[in-house]
């Protein structure tokens, strides 16, 4: 159980990191929409984020409605992020 939690945390940490890269470059692109290097960076981290979100959803439940599979409504029993030890 502990090992599974660590793995879940690690995957979530990855999602956080990829998502942050996307969040940050998104703002940069808003004021530099033609920057090729930033566009390539966006594509790279956006793809990594989507892959990590899919991997997480497969094993630990959906983080958003877009990734929810709908076979089981685990949205109601997976932890909320403010609970800590997330």
């Amino acid at each position, binding site marked *: 159980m502990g090992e599974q939690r660590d793995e879940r945390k690690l995957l*979530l*940490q990855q*999602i*956080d990191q990829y*998502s*942050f890269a996307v*969040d*940050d470059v*998104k*703002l*940069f692109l*808003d*004021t*530099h*929409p033609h920057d090729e290097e930033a566009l390539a960076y966006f594509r790279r981290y956006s793809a990594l984020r989507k892959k990590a979100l899919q991997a997480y959803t497969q094993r630990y439940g*959906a*983080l*958003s*409605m*877009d990734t929810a599979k709908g076979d089981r409504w685990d*949205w109601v029993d*997976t932890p*909320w*992020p*403010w609970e*800590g*030890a*997330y």
Partner: protein
Amino acid sequence: MFQYEKRLQFPVNIKKPDAKVAQMIMSQYGGPDGEIGASLRYLSQRFASPYRQVSAVLTDIGTEELAHLEMVGSIVHQLTHNLTPEQIKASGFADYYIDHTTGVWPQAAGGVPFTATEFQSKGDIITDLHEDMAAEQKARTTYDNILRMLDDPDIIAPIKFLREREIVHFQRFGEALRYVQDQLDCRNFYSMNPAFDKRR
């Protein structure tokens, strides 16, 4: 349209409750330079932006501020979760507790409730962007003030992250302002309100 993602922008895992610190940090939830004011400011101002690029900046930063609001709420929640009545009495948290128990409510550190008078939506993009740049600096100073009060690394890490974002947002708003000026008459940027006087 907004969609929720069930995670924080930056993780918050505080092990040691501390009601005194919660009372201080709460100000960034609902205080004069807090995250709810920031989010409402940008998300409200964007309707009057005549430039799509600037609307993008306001939308995306306003959205990120909602994620920051959630982080600050999580910090306050974890700092007050499972407090005993004795701890509440000893920490000076009793005034808040009487009205809200340990629920999270938007108020300033000094107890003043959140109010929309803490920000403007002036309907003039030059005016609004100047306010936005000042707002990011005021929030940065507040985080600096909070950081001086902290010694728990579990609280310091997310607060440092939030402080850093204020600086990035300041930079982006500055670039947005430069974009607006580039669209205007460089002999007098203030000859008219591009959202009102130039009908489109």
